[in-house]
């Protein structure tokens, strides 16, 4: 259906969103904001995986959809990571009453 789109366009989109996510990681102070930026980066990697899977070819003996499986498991991991992250942030919020990563000052980092 959409075979006029060259592969590189998807890669450009993925790269751009990856860079934006990295920027968010560096610029957000709020831990949940950092978490969102990480999600953006993971999504960028997923787009890469699926684009490469659809355009490239699969070597023998590795099953027909390696990239898709990778993206699938990455989505699972992301869900688990967000759950744990929100739990940790909640724990710290109960202690400090802030959710900013640079407000936690017990350890002389």
């Amino acid at each position, binding site marked *: 259906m*959409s075979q*006029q*789109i*060259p*592969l*590189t*366009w*998807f*890669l*450009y989109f993925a*790269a751009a*969103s*990856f*860079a*934006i*996510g*990295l*920027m*968010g990681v*560096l*610029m*957000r102070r*709020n831990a*949940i*904001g950092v*978490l*969102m930026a990480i*999600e*953006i980066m993971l*999504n960028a990697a*997923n*787009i890469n995986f*699926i*684009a490469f899977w*659809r*355009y490239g*070819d*699969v070597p023998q003996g590795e*099953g*027909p*959809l390696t990239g*898709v*499986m990778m993206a*699938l*498991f990455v*989505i*699972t*991991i*992301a*869900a*688990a990571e*967000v*759950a*744990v992250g*929100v*739990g940790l942030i*909640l724990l710290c919020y*109960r202690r400090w*009453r802030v*959710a900013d990563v640079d407000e936690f000052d017990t350890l002389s980092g």
Partner: protein
Amino acid sequence: MIQALFIALSAFGLLMALGTVFARNLVNAALFLVAFFFVVACQFVLLEAEFMAAIQVLIYIGAVAVLLMFGIMLTRNIQGDETTIVSRQWRLLGVGVAGSVLIVLFLGINGFKPWTDLGVRPEFPVTAETTTERGQAIIAMTPTVGREMMTRYVVPFELAGLLLTAALVGAVVLAQYDNTDEKTASAEPPQVS
């Protein structure tokens, strides 16, 4: 036509991502993030991976976004107003690093010939006479994913189940409210301006 659609979609998605990064209000950021997830799902559809698109909507918009909103609600004031901003040099650092990463990535994508040559995606026709494993996998991704998970990726499949269990249990343990802070008295909300 489809290219214009793609360009519009991607521009919208990148704008949403920028909004996620820059929005002052965290709930707005989460909304932008949801829109970005949706754009990614649309990209999956453009890549003929409708199954992945459905999974993306189900898990990211249905679960991850809601979880993040809960996190915001429980850690900020009710309206989730983001009042903390980073210092100027951190901003410059962030923009600089992101820009350089972007430039290097674009150079890399342009410089790698096998990718730039792939203008047209390979077709895997599925007819009565001829078909390929790939073609089957594309038009019937759900059963193929199921079979892969039960044959080749059985260990990752089980491990993912274990990962989710561990994450659930651990998140419950951490979020469980027990008043065991060493200095609860000093836990006053700071004056945010």
